[in-house]
């Protein structure tokens, strides 16, 4: 497993979706994109240009968009609803529940602007509850890739498996971590480092921070196990239980610490009855317009804080 240095190039993972969906659409004419008037921002313009017959735009009407996607899915289409995380989870939450998850239809919800990544847009546009909300709905799968290449692979997998999948992308550019040919399986954690002193479980745009923290800890002689938990539902419980054996776990996420990756890990650890967990993530507070790094810092989602927590646990 090669982990690239964090000085590598940066690409927003929404671009990974935009690129992969064109490829998928050309391979399978049943794949459709349903835009909600933010196609340019969600990187679906190329899909619309190249595959106009597989593209619809329902205007600024998320609730209807979710229902239309459900109707399309009953005929064998595989619609990808394309919008922002805050709208693709909360604005259409009940429609996702009633018309997509309850009948278990093959609809994918592909959302840019996950977590704090639409930093300049302010608190209204930073989707920090989305994965947690959707995690509680039966039949739903919840995924966030860490970088451009893993996002492409996970988008492809989402198209290949049957059932509702929520995919979350970054608005802003994040470091490329993986090689182009790295493989990913939805529901299976990606182990980036094997270690025995402390386990760090991260996902999405925080994986690059976790890698940096793990590298620094290793330089100080701490053996770190590092997981990219791109799928928070279904959670790779075995991978978490392997961390329980280490007994010291830190979760890192660009999501509210309530009901996201940290909570999901805690559920497994609590039921196992042993092990300590520290959750690093958004501290149950709304964001504001600010540089992305500043917002992470305000919530303690930093390399330094990961290292500090690891040392406190040791």
């Amino acid at each position, binding site marked *: 497993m090669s982990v690239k240095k964090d000085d590598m190039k940066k690409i927003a993972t929404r671009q990974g979706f935009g690129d992969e969906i064109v490829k998928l659409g050309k391979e399978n004419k049943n794949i459709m994109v349903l835009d909600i008037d933010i196609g340019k921002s969600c990187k679906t313009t190329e899909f619309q240009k190249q595959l106009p017959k597989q593209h619809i735009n329902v205007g600024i009407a998320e*609730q*209807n968009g979710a229902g*239309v996607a459900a109707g399309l899915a009953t005929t064998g289409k595989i619609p990808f609803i394309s919008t922002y995380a805050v709208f693709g989870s909360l604005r259409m939450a009940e429609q996702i529940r009633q018309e997509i998850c309850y*009948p278990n239809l093959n609809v994918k919800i592909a959302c840019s602007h996950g977590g704090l990544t639409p930093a300049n847009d302010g608190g209204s546009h930073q989707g920090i509850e989305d994965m947690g909300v959707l995690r509680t709905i039966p039949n739903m799968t919840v995924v966030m890739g860490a970088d451009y290449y893993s996002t492409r692979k996970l988008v492809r997998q989402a198209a290949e498996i049957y059932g509702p999948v929520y995919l979350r992308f970054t608005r802003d550019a994040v470091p490329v971590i993986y090689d182009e040919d790295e493989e990913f399986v939805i529901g299976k954690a990606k182990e980036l480092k094997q270690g025995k002193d402390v386990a760090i479980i991260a996902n999405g745009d925080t994986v690059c921070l976790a890698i940096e923290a793990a590298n620094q800890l290793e330089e100080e002689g701490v053996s770190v196990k590092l997981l990219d938990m791109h799928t928070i539902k279904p959670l790779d419980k075995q991978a978490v239980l392997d961390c329980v054996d280490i007994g010291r776990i830190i979760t890192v996420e660009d999501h509210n610490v309530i009901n996201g990756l940290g909570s999901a890990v805690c559920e497994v650890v609590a039921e196992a009855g042993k092990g300590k967990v520290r959750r690093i993530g958004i501290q149950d507070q709304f964001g504001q317009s600010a540089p992305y790094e500043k917002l992470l810092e305000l919530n303690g989602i930093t390399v330094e804080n990961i290292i500090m927590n690891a040392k406190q646990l040791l």
Partner: protein
Amino acid sequence: MNILKNISIEELKQKAAELRQTVLTMIYEAQSGHPGGSFSAADVVTALYFKETNIDPKNPRWEDRDRFVLSKGHACPAQYAALAMLGYVPYETIHKLREYGSPFQGHPDMKKCPGIDISTGSLGQGLSCGVGMAIAGKIDEKNYRVFVMVGDGECNEGQIWEAVQTAAKYKLDNLVVFVDNNGLQLDGTTDEIMPTQDFEDKFRAFGFETQRIDGHSMEQIVSVLDFVRGQKNGKPKCIVLDTVKGKGVSFMENKCNWHGVAPNDEEYEQAMKELRASVQ
């Protein structure tokens, strides 16, 4: 190609009376369900299932079938009665409304009941699904049509109008929306709760072609369905049905209280007597 069933208006009236009796029996035995809205919808549901729609009860997922979306999902006893009478499920299923494991759930569940094209129950959402089905039909150049029934009260929901805009944008002349305009919703009359204004004006303003009929006149229902069948003019269709909530049972008609209440023994006997007499 539409395979219209060869059935007379008199026979359809008989079917509607039979369907209403089945609805009543289901709700009576379950001691739970929504008779009022089921009865206001019953005549159009009968005409669709027994005459107009191109469907195959032996192959409920047939991809070229016409679709029917009961967006006002609480009226499902009317749809269930039709499905049972046509053999989508064993007729005895009518004795299992709202029972554990039954295909006849409290609201339509496509995973449990053959013949249900989309699960509904949360108001305002089914029309969007019908629009999705109709768009797919256009993309795949299929000839099937999509019939959606919404309630007048249900049109309080903003999502209905989002779906209506989308239907007009995509020129869904393969979509027919029925508004069950019975004038009552759960808490009172539509005028008290949320005035509906004129549905024809509203749908026309959104780009639909509209008709308004007596939703309990089988003659008018058959005639309007004949009319819209030929209208491949790029416009989605809306048929406003002037109906009576609880239609067919004197003491239930136009009574808000019969929205979601089951009849007791005496009420059931009396109602069945009236429904049997209606087709003599």
